[in-house]
Every structure is written in structure tokens, then in C-alpha cells.
């Protein structure tokens, strides 16, 4: 049997901040723009893909993040292999758009607590003033010069997606910055 190896990210606690690796979790990149594409996705995932920029939709344990007018990331505990296969066969195979498994492309780190935006502000030029007061919003920005996707899914609760190759370095940086809060 092949062993699974995730980046060296362990649960950490700082004053008013908890950091946690949320893996494994399936993440899919969806691309498309036709009406049929939206309809099929809605039927299969029971979720309407958000069309408002930088917004997200969450139903049960599936979240859909707006990435661009024709690109979304869906992730969640309720996505399993069967769901993935039906998306692939109903979307990609029928040329309605594209479904690509990016579960290993991105690493999900959860940041929770009152100091979430304090630590993010240390490395991100993004203006979090409105973002932190709004749930279910998404931003693709830089954190310590590294591309990240931030999903503010609940008050002071952010799911951070970072490409796997950057994840250990970013994790070290988040830990370091959190120690100076």
C-alpha cells in the first residue's frame, strides 16, 4: 500500500487564534458558463454556483467558491468519489465545461479566532475591513507573497487554500507571524 503524506502542519494555538490542517478533503475546480452547466451542477451538488464576484454558497457540507466569472472551487466533506464521478461524466464528458480534481493541488488550513485577520494583515495587502464583517465571502490574494484563496465561512473563521508546494513555507510563516500578535 502506498502511504499518504501531507505537509508537516500540526494543530496550533495562539492567543485568540487556532490553526488547523483540514485534510483530506475533496476539492474540485469547475469551469463553464452555459445554462446547462449551471443546471447540471445544481442538480448534482444541490447547490447554485454563486455568480456574484468573491462570494460563496454553502449547503450542508459543500461550499462553492466564486473564483472568476466561469470558474469555481467546490469543496466539502460531503463530496465523495461518486459525486466526483457523476460531475465528471455529466459535465466534462458531455463537454458542458470542465471538472478537475484539485484535492492534492490545494491544502486547506483553517484559521479561527479573533486574531485571524490580524495575522492575515501581516502578509496580505488585501483590505479585510469589509471582508471580516461578511460571512461567505471569498478572496484570492497574496499572503507572504504566496497565492492563496481565503473563504470567510463564519465569523472569525477562515478556510485558507494554498498550493501544496507552498504550504509548509506558508505554515511556518503563519506560525511565526502569529507569535507576534
Amino acid at each position, binding site marked *: 500500500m502506498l502511504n499518504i503524506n501531507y505537509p508537516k502542519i500540526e494543530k496550533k494555538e495562539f492567543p485568540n487564534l487556532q490553526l488547523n490542517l483540514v485534510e483530506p478533503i475533496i476539492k474540485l475546480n469547475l*469551469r463553464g458558463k452555459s445554462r446547462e452547466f449551471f443546471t447540471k451542477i445544481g442538480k448534482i451538488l444541490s447547490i447554485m454556483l454563486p455568480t456574484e464576484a468573491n462570494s460563496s454558497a454553502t449547503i450542508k457540507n459543500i461550499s462553492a467558491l466564486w473564483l472568476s466569472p466561469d470558474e469555481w472551487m467546490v469543496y466539502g466533506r460531503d463530496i465523495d468519489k461518486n459525486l466526483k464521478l457523476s460531475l465528471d461524466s455529466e459535465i466534462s464528458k458531455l463537454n458542458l465545461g470542465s471538472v478537475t480534481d484539485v484535492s492534492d493541488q490545494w491544502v486547506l488550513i483553517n484559521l479561527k479566532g479573533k486574531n485571524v485577520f490580524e495575522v492575515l494583515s501581516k502578509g496580505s495587502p488585501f483590505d479585510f475591513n469589509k471582508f471580516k464583517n461578511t460571512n461567505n465571502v471569498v478572496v484570492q490574494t497574496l499572503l507572504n507573497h504566496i497565492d492563496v484563496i481565503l473563504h470567510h465561512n463564519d465569523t472569525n473563521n477562515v478556510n485558507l487554500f494554498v498550493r501544496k508546494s507552498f504550504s509548509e513555507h506558508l505554515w511556518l510563516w503563519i506560525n511565526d507571524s502569529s507569535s507576534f500578535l
Partner: protein
Amino acid sequence: MSENFRSLETKFLDKTNRISFKYNGKKYYGYKGDTLASALLSNGIHLIGRSFKYHRPRGIMTCGSEEPNAIVQIGGTGSFTEPNVRATEQEIYEGLEASSQNCWPSVEFDVGGINNFISPVIPAGFYYKTFMWPKKLWYSLYEPAIRMSAGLGKSPTQPDPELYDHNHLHCDVLVVGGGISGIIAASISSDNGNNTVLIDDKNSLGGSTIFQDDENFKINDEISSVWLNNQIKKIKNKKNLIIKHRTSLAAYHSYNYLLARENLADHKSLNERSNKLRQRLWKIRAKKVILATGAIERPLIFNNNDRPGVMLANSVKKYIDYFGVRCGNKNIIFTNNDSAYETAISLNKKGINVSIVDIRNNSSSILVKNAKDAGIKIYWNHTVVNTAGYRRIKSIQIMKMSEDGTNVIDSKINLVCDNLSISGGWTPMVHLFTQSGGKLKFRDSDQVFLPNVTTSDQISIGSCNGDFELDDVIKNTISECKNFLSLSLTDFDLLKVNCPKQKESKNIWLLPNDKPLGKTKPFLDFQNDSTAKDIKLAMREGFRSIEHVKRYTTTGMGTDQGKLANMHALGIISETAGVKMGTLGTTTFRPPYTPLTFGTIVGRNVGTFFDIARKTPMHAWHENRKAKFENVGQWKRAWYYPMDDESIHQAVQRESKAARESAGILDASTLGKIDIKGTDASEFLNRVYTNAWSKLGIGKCRYGLMLNEDGMVYDDGVTTRLDENHYVMTTTTGGAANVLSKLEDYLQTEWPELDVWLTSVTDQYATASVCGPNSKNILKKLFPKVEFNDENFPHMSFKNAELDGINCRIMRISFTGEHSYEINIESKYGKSLWEKCMDEGKEFNITPYGTETMHLLRAEKGFIIVGQDTDGTMTPIDLQMDWIVSKKKYDFIGKRSLYRSDTMREDRKQLVGLLTDNPNEVLEEGAQIVQDEKKQPIEMLGHVTSSYFSPNLNKSIALAVIKNGKKLKGQKLLVPMKDKTIKVTVSDYIFFDSKNERLNA
């Protein structure tokens, strides 16, 4: 015991907290809240350092960031040491150690003081004239001597152990400056729902009004300081107002992007600041900016105006009224305006002896009347013509001025003093305004530059906008803020302000003297020792532009950046040249406003965080195997795997032989991977690459070359057709992100009609590349169900397979010229896949090889690396890759450019091979190639792009780009190096297995 000059009560210091510190090795005491300057003055110390050029004794002159003289070394000689710290800004802490700079053996007796005596022979610009001849002395004498005397203070020789941080901040309104106008602005802004930030460089708010206790200055019938203190208490409780103390704005860039340095621990003892941040750099994006940066007092320019004890009048007032420190027992105020009378009145009220020398004939100001009523002696229409006292001023000589102010008359009067407070008016601090791109205007009435036109959303208020009287400051601050923030009412609209008005004014840039200018030393730039006569000398020598005069005389080039000097330099230039001052302009105000430490600039981007480290899923294995890594883009790639004490050369020779003779394995996970789906995917690839893609069968791979629109090679890689409408493209490691952006850009802007979807999957898959004669045997063991014969699995084809139930994509492609396979697997299994390959390959002596061996193996085969063998100026034809450019396709990116006359020239630089006459001699990459060494000027034909010693060929090989290279095959060329010239022969660029027999074996 020395006299205690802190005889006055003050509410601004914590007198219960007595602090000891050392200055020049001697222990002194001050109080919490003291600056080093106020603490030293309270101990009667004025002599702080020596000037840069003449090593003249210099003392504390100001109380703020404009200080030119009192700059000290903090922290002894260890790693915490820091030079050029302004004593006027450094707060004292328990255990602080400070010492004087630019003096030896001591500040009291400095050998360098000899320069003062030879000053007539070292005027401005002597550097440029003196060190021209004899030429041979430059290296042996001049340069070492200049280097030895250059700079002030001592740089630390050890790494800075302190911690620094960066932080981003966004706000609706940023107010810079915590004086009265800044406080009113911040209050108005935050009261009206704006997310507001107020920054101030001091440890408490209030500016100079907070210690203004004069009855003449009243707001709503309260003394101005009382009223302001109440306002400060109120704004501290405002919800949407952040106040940052000890924070100075360093830079104001375009579009309201500003940098501010916050001092977090500079006022704390070393114990208190252990493992804590010292300074933080705030990167601020503000929708609107209100500059309330105030004004600084101007000095007056007269003979020997630089002695310790000569201070700015307003600073003397702050030392008395804020710090409770008197700067002398016998004070003389020398002024050209009314504001200095506030200092005189303050001194008089505290029982300190004071008299006034005023260059004006009279003044009707209430302040002057108060001074007269208090019995203060005033010398009207007089000027100081000389001062005396070496380490501290002892006396001054004054003379009456002629009616027109150009000369002095009558006899000299000698006045004894131990402090001379000078005031030449006020200069608005417009530095930040101009940094942001704002343009200035000149106001003739009081000869000041003021903010005028700006493109960013900002205003200047208060004295930095030219309002120097309290009622003007308040009235205009309110109206400017209302207009700027679109408000009709504020809480301050009905304020009643009473203050004295300045009525008579007189400004003379260079005061007259009884001696000729050449016999006097009227200093402009106190730090760099430039005088009025230096400016006049520069003018005589033909310099006219302020920028040229500045550089010739070094005026304004010290750590204070001429905050006190520049206006006088401009004034003297305008008078000498007979032009209006406003037409001269100013020198360029560049960031930072005050010096920043390197630590603040880099923040936490040091050590581990100096650069981003991108790691492959197999990284930990490479580390365990003691691999050496190289940076490829942001990736850390295994470079080579030394065994025992192998050198890189030995390791690469071993690894490359193993790969050719049995089996090698490379971590190729870093290659960019782009998933391409859609019904138009084939057409898309046709347009992107130079070769044809329509007929590529499912399960087949093809190498492609991507060009820029200029026809130059941009990237390359192998793309595999996974399904009818599904491809996966590989790109170079460093080019992955740019290629994806470029392709997405084309899809969105040029070819929106194409049904194609791109997704980056670089990190989704880990890739192990197994190569060598035994690679097939290893793959057979790993994937027993897959048939690896050439019919079923030929070169440039792909198969899906399972490894322990996990899906893998296997591509039979090669970058080494060997029979080889790339196995792609979900990256969480990457390390396990690698270990499995190593286990199964053990019997075949599978050898991990790094990027250096990969480069060697591909160079033997003549495979290019985009970015190493190309440099953005190479077409496919230049690379002798004509075969990959389709003649039949209608179009592809860069096609048109390939048919331009220049790209079709036959004598362009072309890729060739090089063989050295001595087969053991390895060329240096980047070395220039020539045909005739004696030809003048020497003609460079090209350069070496890749060079190695090939253990498989047992000789040195190199790739090079050479002008007209294709036609030079077989010709001898030269590679001149520092100590020899290497003879080479132009050869084919494929050195090994040109018939691809091993590839298909």
C-alpha cells in the same frame, strides 16, 4: 557634582520613574519620557558630537527629527549597536548606552579637529579637484583615506538580533501628525463615520500646542493647551479612530500608498524587548490622506552659528515647558519674528535670565509688549556677528544693522550667554506632499514653499499648509476638512480662538557681518559643514541648479537631509543669482522622511523567510538522502546527491554514468502541468504551439515549442492527449505560472470563441522520472499488469495504470536521451511512489540524480533548456529546430514574426555545439566567443550557454549561440578567459546517440 538643569516641574514626565543611562561611558539620570537630548541637557551636557568635515564641536540644536548635530551611537559595540540615532528622538531607557560619533579619542578632544584649522584649503568641491592627480595615488592613498574618514558612526558587524515586522492597514482617512490640526482633523473624520487612523512620531499627542501655557493663546476661553488636552482625552475613546504613537511616516507613494515605521521597543530596556518586536513597518492604503506634519523653525545664518548652546528657540521652549529642562542660565534669543518671544516669555516666567536680539526695527505684537512689560532687554535692529566658546557658547557679539539690512554699523556689543536661541521663521514640512507627486507654490510674503497641486486624494492642513497662527490653523483646518470630507457641520464650527498676530516680519538669508564672507563661518548645513561661502563658491564656479549646488557643496546630504539647511541654500542662491526664489524650485524630497533601519525595511523576510521555499512531495526524502538543493524559480530542487565526501563534479559524474548504464530517477514534480479540456482543445494547441496537434492520437505525447508574438521561443514541454477533448500540458518549471496566464489571456481576449478550459494541476501530481536501460525493468516490477513492449507502449505515448490501487499516469517520454518513463501520481502519494521506485530499482542500482545531472544528460543529447540556451532572442530556426515549425498551419502565436526580414537573416546567432581542443578543459557558461583576439574592437560572436564534462563521452562538451553558427561548423574559435585563451571547434549540437537508438531501445 554637576549642576542639575531640571529645576522645573513638568506634567509630561513620570518623575517617579528615574532612569539611569550612560553617555560616553559616564552614568547619568533622567526620567521616563525623557529623550536622550532632554536628559543630557538636564545634566548640563551640550557637547554631543563633532561635525562631519571640520570636526567642530556640535551640540543639541532642536527637539525633533530635524536635528542635524546630536546624532549618537547607541548600544556600544555589540550586535545591538546603531549609528546616527538622533538624541532628540531617542527616548531613554534603563541601561541605555550612547556615545558621541565622528571623534577620536574623545568628543572633548578630537584629533580630527585639525580639519577646522585647514578649512581654508578644503573648501566645497575640494574632493573633486584634489584627488585628480597624481593618478597612481588613487588606490594607494586617496581611496583608503576617503574610506577611512567617510560616514558617521560605526555600522554593526554582526547580524541584527532584533525582530521587525510588517503589517498592512487600510483606512478611509489617514491623518499624519498629532498636533492640534491633526487632532481636530482626526476628530472630525472619525465623528463622521470614517475609519480613521492618526499617526504621530512622538510618544504623546499634542505637538507644540500641548505645552503652550501662555494666556495669549486661548480656545473657547481656555488656555490652548488645556483645551487641546481635553480633545486628546476625547479622541482616545472614539470607536473608529486608531491612534498610533511613536509612528513616523517614512514614505508617501502614489495613489495614497504610505509606509510608516512604528517604534515598538526602542524606548524599552534590552531585557524588556527580548523576543519582542522592535519596529513595525505599516503599509497603509488610505482612501484619503490629511497631512498635518507641521513646520520646523528656521535657524539664522551668521558667523559661527554652530557652537554647542546655539539652539532653535522653539526647541528651547519645549525643553523648558515640556521636559522641565532649562538649556542655560543666561539665555539670549536671536530672532526675526514674534514666535521666539514666546520662548523669551516662558524663560522669563521661570525666572531664567533672558534678553533678545531682533533684526527688526520693532514689532507691535502683544507678545513683544508682554516681553517688554516683563523687563526683557530687546536689542532692535541688531544682528549677531560672532560667537565665542569652543565646547559651549560663552558670549556673542552683536552689531546694529544698516537701514537696508545689508550691512552692520556702529560698534560691537559683547553679550555673555550660555545659550543662544535662534529663530529665523518657519518652514512648512512639505516633504511628504512632494513625495506623493504634489507640486509646490512659493509664497513671497514669508518666503515659504506650500502645497499646491496634487493628483492624489489628500489635503495639507495647519502649519505644513502655511498657517502659522493658532486662529488660522484652527479655522482653516476645520474648513479644509469640511470641504475634503464633504461635511456641512462639525463640532468645532463655533470655536472661539484668540492668539497674537504676527505683523512685522523681516527675513535675511545671510546676515551681514563686519568681516568679509571669506573670513567667517556662517553654517547652513550643520551636519555636513557646508557654509554660505561654499554656496557662493559653487555659484562662482558656474553651478546654478539647486540640485548641482547641493551635490557640489554636500548641502542637505546628511542624515537630516538638510531639513534646516535647504531653504537658506535656496535663499542665498536666489540672492546671489538675482533670481526669484520661487523659480528655483526645491531639491527632490525622496523617501524615507527620516532614516529607516534595514531591519524595518525587510521585516520578517530574513532567515527562513528571506525567500519563499516551494517543495515537492518528495522533498523530505531528498533531505534525508543529504541532497544539495538549488533554487529553480521558487522551487527547491534536488541539485545532486553527494555520497561520502563527493564534490558536485564527482556526484554528477557518478549519477550520469548510472543513468546511462542502468537506471536513474529524477524528481520532476516541479514541471508545470496544465489540464486542458474542451471541444476545441486540439485547435487551441495548434494555435499555441508551432507544430501540428490535430492528428495526435489519444494516448500519445508530443513535444511543443511555444513562441512569443515576436517569434522568439517562450516555453516548451510535452503535451499528452488523455482523451478526445482532454490534454495535459507540461511547461518548464520556472515558466508554469506565466504560461498559464498567457494562455488564459489568449482564451479570454483573442480566442473567446474556443471551447477550452484550463486548470493548473502542477501541485496536484507528483512526478518521478525513471530513465536508463533498466527503466523498463523497474516499471515492469511496479506495474506488472502493464505491457511495456514497444508495440504496446512506444516512445511518446501514455498509459493509465494502478500502483497499489492508486491511479497513475505513465508517459514514456525522455529528456535524457535514455529509454525513460514519467510516472504521475496524486501528490499525497508522491513520496511513497518514489520510495517504491527506489525499492523496486534496487537490484538495478537505481540512482537518484539531481538537476545538474539532468542538465548534463540533456546537453549530451543537444536538448535545449528554455531560459538557459535561449534568452528571448532565439527563434526555433536559430535553435536549429526548423523541424518543429509547421509550414502548413494557418497560424500560431509568433508565426508572422518568423517571416520578418530580421528573423530570417541567415547570420543570426544560432545554437551550435563546441568541443575544446583539450578534452579535459570545461568552458565557463557565459564565456564570450571570438574569432580573432587581436581585432580591435574585438568582435564577440556569441557565448557559451551550457557546458559540462561528459563522463559518457569522456570529454568536455558545450552548447553555445554563435553568430552565423550553422555555417561555422568545423571552424576553430577562441574563448578568451582571464588568464588564458581556450581553443574550441564548432560542432554539431548533438553529442550523444544522434540516431536515438537508446531512446527507442
